């Protein structure tokens, strides 16, 4: 059976954590991984190479600070009419509860702070979408920190942990995080509307959610801000009891 998917074999031990993960998260056998997932995939490949060697061994000096990092891409984007020199995209991100217990340790939004489209330079930033108060900024930025950090020439990673943790889960265990991706044209000229046509938000902004295994961080849990405890998954209390 070399090369054949092993779903039947996996199904024989559905309660083991790894097997459960494989059964729940693996795409169907016919669903091949896309050949190209664009810039987000490239970003995660670089993150992987910084954190593990070619054989998959985690590097001792890795700075990732979590055992799991999930890149979430926007569900869809809605482009608003141009307001002066500004172009605004509304991005929705679906955040869902995990089946297994993990604890969020950090959430960031990664975006291109500078875009170069058809000869035009755009300066961009991300804000939370706030109804009736479009100019309100991230709570975390009101105090002056943390500021966005420049990851490379192309990408900026900004901490939004506080903003994410302040949003309660709805009764279905779902949460949609809405952000605004705003770009300003640096050198005037043609309408941004035309420039933006055909540009996917998937290539311009995405979320990174950093998690740790709950059972690993049980002893640290009391040191975390209370809000972060909301991210303990449904069965985390059971795991905590077992750990005790």
């Amino acid at each position, binding site marked *: 059976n070399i090369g054949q998917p*092993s779903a039947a074999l996996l199904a024989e031990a559905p309660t083991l954590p790894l097997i459960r993960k494989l059964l729940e998260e693996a795409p169907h056998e016919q669903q091949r991984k896309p050949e190209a997932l664009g810039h987000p995939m490239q970003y995660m490949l670089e993150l992987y190479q910084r954190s593990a060697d070619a054989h998959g*061994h985690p590097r001792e000096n890795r700075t990732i600070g979590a055992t799991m990092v*999930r890149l979430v891409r926007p569900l869809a984007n809605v482009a608003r009419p141009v307001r002066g020199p500004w172009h605004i995209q509304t991005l929705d991100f679906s955040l869902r509860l995990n089946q297994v217990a993990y604890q969020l340790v950090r959430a960031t939004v990664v975006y291109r702070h500078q875009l170069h489209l058809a000869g035009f330079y755009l300066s961009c930033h991300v804000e939370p979408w706030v109804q009736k108060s479009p100019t309100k900024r991230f709570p975390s930025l009101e105090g002056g920190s943390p500021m966005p950090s420049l990851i490379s020439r192309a990408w900026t990673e900004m901490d939004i942990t506080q903003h994410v943790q302040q949003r309660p889960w709805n009764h279905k265990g779902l949460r949609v995080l809405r952000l605004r991706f705003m770009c300003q044209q640096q050198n005037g000229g043609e309408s941004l509307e035309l420039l933006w046509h055909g540009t996917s938000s998937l290539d311009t902004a995405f979320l990174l959610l950093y998690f740790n295994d709950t059972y690993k961080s049980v002893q640290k849990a009391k040191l975390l801000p209370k809000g972060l405890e909301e991210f303990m998954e449904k069965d985390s209390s059971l795991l905590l009891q077992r750990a005790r």
Partner: protein
Amino acid sequence: RAGNISSKIPGPSQEHDGPKSNQCSLHHFQVSFHQLGLDHWIIAPNLYTPNYCKGACPRVLHYGLNSPNHAVIQNLVNELVDQSVPQPSCVPYKYVPISILLVEANGSILYKEYKDMIAQSCTCR
């Protein structure tokens, strides 16, 4: 009674334990995620080195095997009391994790460190 038992314990012998090459030890083994049927969602790494433990456990479990007390006693039981009780088995002792990059069914990209995925040493227990 311990004295009586110990007097009956023979020392390590090649005849009983088999040739040294057949003794419990870690064996290098590499497999691709394609062979495991998981390459349709695992991006990196391409190869996985789980390794495995194989070989006979010696009658006298020396210190380097990290065998627990229970294994030592089980060996004595097998030797002196009841041979239907099996000798300890050669199994992994320490593991190291592996980092995997994968694409989830919903299109999310996941970096995850899975614990206990690579056998690093062996023991008899």
